[in-house]
């Protein structure tokens, strides 16, 4: 079957199998390997991307279900060579160790800050509660997101072209 959608603002149209999962479509068919494929059971959140402005676990969404929708991945965070404040925050505050959970964490963080620009530590912890950092680096992840909250400048990726 044919699926057409926008990914990071660009229209794509691809031939897929109905059973193809969004995470594999993004990684294998479009080459967007920033989105990670982790537990495959919607527990770990390494595969979080946005669909129509909301974070979803792309291992549990069919690529076909994304047809006609607006998908944003971690590759869409940076704009014209400028890092999103969330990305900058992860650099400044050592928000990643092995980096496997990082794309999902950053996509959830960006969505949180768009809805709640000044979240408390508890609100951040709740927002990322469906995501696992196997390096257990949660304290620095929370700190990174707080850093981003206090250094906001970028336009939300949802309102970008």
């Amino acid at each position, binding site marked *: 079957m044919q699926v057409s959608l926008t990914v990071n603002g660009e229209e794509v149209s691809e031939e897929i199998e109905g*059973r193809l999962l969004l995470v594999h479509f993004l990684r294998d068919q479009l080459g967007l390997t920033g989105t990670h494929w982790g537990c495959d059971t919607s527990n770990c*959140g390494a595969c979080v991307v946005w669909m129509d402005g*909301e974070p*979803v*676990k792309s291992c*549990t*969404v069919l690529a076909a*279900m994304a047809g006609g929708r607006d998908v944003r991945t971690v590759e869409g965070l940076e704009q014209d060579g400028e890092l999103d404040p969330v990305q900058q925050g992860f650099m400044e505050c050592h928000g990643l160790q092995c980096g496997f959970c990082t794309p999902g964490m950053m996509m959830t963080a960006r969505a949180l800050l768009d809805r709640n620009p000044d979240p408390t530590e508890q609100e951040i912890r709740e927002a990322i*509660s*469906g995501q696992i950092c196997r390096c257990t680096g949660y304290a620095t992840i929370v700190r990174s997101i707080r850093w981003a909250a206090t250094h906001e400048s970028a336009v939300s990726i949802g309102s970008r072209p």
Partner: protein
Amino acid sequence: MQVPAPFDYERATSVDHAIGLLERLGESARVVAGGHSLLPMMKLRLANFEYLIDINDLHSELGYIRAEGNEIRVGAMTRHRELLESDVLVEAFPIFRDAERVIADPVVRNRGTLGGSLCQADPSEDLSAVCTTLDASCVIQGSGGTRVVSMEDFYQGPYETAVGAAELLIEIRIPLRPGGSSAYEKVERRAGDWAVVSSGAAVWLQDGVISDARVGLAAVGPNTAGIPAISETLRGKTPTEELFAQAGALAAESCNPSTDMRGSIEYKRHLANELTQRALRRSVARINGQGV
């Protein structure tokens, strides 16, 4: 890599269209809403279908929460996050927000739906306990029209519901009755997990006396079950700690848990008892204006 067996994907554009597809494709077809129960089962090949009918476009038709007359009507495609954030719902039934805060995680809640949760009919599913506690009814639509069934009739066994092969659950109706409140208590091993045991309670007071009360449990039997014996015991009494303890003991006696990786039978009965008491206590405190 976990991948479902091959199937043909169809997308429904309206309730009638979805029912038409189900009629044409027969039992080899299944509808998918949020997909966070069905797709994992298909990935494990516990469920296999020739056709999957995506009903996410029906959110515009079936995604709503509104008060109508003496009930609140919730569309089956209403997502967990919408239930969690609804002021209309929390004002009438705080039990919904209690439960939604501990269902899966925020990202999963962006996808999962009320209708999907009920139709999955997992014995540990929280919204089933909530709807049972609130004496909700389910509106099921087929080509011949709609029918309304109680929660008791909706569940026919683990993972089995009254929804026929060519039917769709379209709405949940919850009766609004004055003088009441509700609460939900859940014990889980970690954030976002299924319940070890959950208990929901709804209480109605008249002149300081319990005019009605209901308790619904999750994860302690084949399907979420209301416990009529508790309602009978509580009606006509003044809410006291002794009465809550009686109700808790009844909950522990009447449920039917099994030992599994989440706990032993004894532990689960203990939880059913304790959580029922807490949910009743909190419901009554809420009626009395104590913001808890």
